[in-house]
């Protein structure tokens, strides 16, 4: 199974990894220029802006003159990023002087944006056609519900009321790495699967979108096209209706998948159909460091290990069930207890104590979030203790040597192993057996030593 590393990776890293040809093509779209400019580190943004009206190459030296000693590393990062994204072209001339020029397409597009302001990617539909647009609360609720439904399906929960329309093959791709299936057994969440559930919505979205894009080639969709469409989508206005007929065939297919994820809501009018971007879609180009979209917490943990979660979400219940015993559920409240047994089953699934604790802390109910610590210390300590309980036995691969011909050779060998800090066990001095255990990684050295001694 491929090893999937769950990291909240930025969209832009993915863009930067595109081949040069595709990247240059992407910059023909002004929205992408804007999204990419916004994703740059602060210093890089400034460099782009100050180079915007300069047509001639700028020497690296003249740029470095601006940098204070403290900022050299930041400057390096900014310049590297710009070159990586092909916004800057680096040239070294005959006098071995490095100069930078701004990508001309990027430059023209940004200039246009500055002079004429930001134009929307497409006009929203007039309100007389779209009669009943959902309110922003409804839209938010729709997006969350859709997303939760998708996640429940992703973790193969039995709690799904209505399966979403995402094809099972697509689902398999998303599940890759998050679930592991031993034969004939129900699939279980892997370690990274649990980490995935603990991430905030934006990061989860990124992970899924990333998988979606990396898989696009198999579906016959150009990944650059997909990226540009997704970025463009993030510049639409939340809650406005856009005619679906303005999209290309590929985009229409994509938008159906996105609707299943809750990024857009599709509505059918009498003649036209339209899509309404939700907040999930408009957050796509927002960098993950902006925590403005952070959700409110809902969990209260008491010192008696009881856990109260003020949530109506089935997903939250599923997550809590991973490491606690859910005792009863009221319409807006889940009550559970953190027990040794429930934690042991979590640890067995590869979930660590730190992950559980950080989940409880990050999702602390506002009432307890003000407190320091937000999760009682005795609970966090106990969770850690129970985890270390399981780790009392440490496994080290090792070799066992015995049958030494002489006492001298045995003692020499044990000293030699001690020198490598590899001796794990040796017979007590008075024993006649003369055997010792040495770490497996030093077996080669041991063998060499012993054969040398024998000669």
């Amino acid at each position: 199974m491929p090893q999937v590393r769950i990291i909240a990776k930025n969209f832009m890293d993915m863009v930067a990894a595109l081949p040069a040809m595709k990247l240059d093509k992407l910059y023909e779209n002004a929205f992408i220029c804007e999204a990419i400019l916004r994703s740059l580190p602060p210093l890089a943004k400034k460099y782009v802006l100050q180079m915007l009206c300069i047509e001639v190459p700028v020497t690296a030296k003249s740029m470095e003159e601006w940098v204070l000693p403290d900022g050299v590393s930041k400057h390096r990062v900014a310049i590297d990023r710009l070159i990586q994204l092909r916004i800057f072209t680096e040239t070294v001339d005959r006098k071995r002087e490095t100069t930078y020029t701004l990508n001309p397409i990027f430059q023209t597009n940004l200039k246009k944006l500055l002079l004429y302001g930001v134009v929307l990617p497409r006009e929203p539909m007039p309100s007389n056609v779209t009669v009943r647009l959902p309110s922003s609360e409804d839209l938010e609720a729709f997006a969350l519900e859709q997303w939760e439904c998708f996640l429940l399906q992703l973790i193969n929960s039995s709690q799904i009321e209505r399966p979403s329309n995402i094809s099972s093959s697509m689902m398999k791709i998303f599940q890759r790495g998050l679930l592991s299936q031993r034969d004939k057994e129900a699939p279980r969440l892997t370690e990274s699967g649990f980490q995935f559930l603990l991430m905030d919505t934006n990061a989860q979205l990124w992970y899924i979108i990333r998988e979606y894009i990396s898989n696009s080639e198999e579906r016959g969709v150009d990944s650059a096209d997909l990226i540009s469409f997704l970025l463009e989508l993030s510049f639409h206005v939340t809650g406005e209706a856009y005619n679906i007929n303005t999209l290309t065939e590929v985009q229409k297919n994509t938008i159906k998948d996105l609707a299943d994820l809750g990024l857009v809501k599709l509505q059918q009018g009498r003649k036209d159909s339209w899509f309404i971007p939700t907040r999930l879609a408009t957050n796509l180009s927002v960098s993950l460091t902006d925590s403005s979209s952070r959700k409110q917490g809902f969990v209260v943990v008491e010192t008696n290990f009881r856990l109260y979660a003020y949530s109506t979400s089935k997903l939250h219940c599923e997550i809590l069930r991973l490491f606690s015993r859910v005792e009863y559920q009221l319409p807006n409240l889940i009550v559970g207890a953190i027990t040794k047994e429930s934690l042991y089953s979590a640890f067995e699934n590869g979930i660590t104590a730190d992950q559980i604790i950080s989940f409880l802390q990050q999702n602390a109910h506002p009432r307890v979030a003000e407190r320091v610590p937000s999760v009682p210390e005795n609970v966090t300590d106990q969770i850690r203790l129970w985890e270390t309980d399981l780790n009392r036995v440490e496994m080290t691969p090792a070799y066992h040597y015995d049958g030494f011909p002489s006492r001298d050779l045995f003692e020499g060998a044990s000293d030699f192993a001690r020198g490598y800090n590899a001796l794990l066990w040796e017979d007590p001095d008075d024993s006649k057996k003369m055997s010792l255990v040495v770490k497996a990684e030093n077996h080669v050295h041991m063998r060499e030593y012993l054969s040398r001694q024998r000669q």
Partner: protein
Amino acid sequence: MASAPSKLYADDVSLLMVLLDTNPFFWSSSSLPFSMFLSHVLTFLNSILLLNQLNQVVVIATGYNSCSYIYDSSTSTNQGSDNGRMPARCVNLLQKLEEFVIKDEQLIKEGLREGIASSLLSGSLSMALCYIQRVFRSGPLHPQPRILCLQGSSDGPEQYVAIMNAIFSAQRSMVPIDSCYMGSSNSAFLQQASYITGGVYLKPQQPNGLFQYLSTVFATDLHSRAFLQLPKSLGVDFRASCFCHKKTIDMGYICSVCLSIFCKHHKKCSTCGSVFGQAQSDVNSTSNKKRKTPET
């Protein structure tokens, strides 16, 4: 440079308060026409808003007799009808600016002040600081504010006290005041404002390339300023204005109780009411320091 406490936003989210000098007495004699100046500034505002979706720009017009908020990017809707080539943002701003200039002109007719035709910088600085205070109090999540004075007209010494108070208030709340001075000679007020608050004072050598100055120097967010070498002013004119005749003076009298400044000897401090003794005759004084009034 450290700014106001506890922020959860990314480092470079900024709130830029732009104080726009609209003094007709200055712009009628300026080498750079006002329309050109405006187009540079508008492009600059666009670029600030382009850099980060959370960036916020507020424009305050500084007139001859009044000042007023003319644009706030957080309230005005960016979308809407694009009539022709002008984006909605500029249309709104220009409309408000025109209304403001007409109103300001009417006020001029009512009472023309004597002396130097200075703008009401103290008023717009105070307005900017009030706005920033409101942003500070709106919650822990707010952009980093800074003030940019785009000033052309010369200092009005009669505003000395008000401006200095505004500067110290900005210093207390860690708001840097950047100043871009378009006039012919340097502005002592703005030099002091930028010096005290840790902002940048710049007098563009070539006003035609204003946008380049603005985007290179004044677009730098507070986070990046810690890593960059921004222009430093060579000398700051620290001269004060006297409280009695509002004249800029090199030497004067200072009340030992409340530190009010006077250009000539008074019997009583007009600010705090302390009674001064007799000043020593200053005929044979060669000290080049400011003379303090003898103790009462």
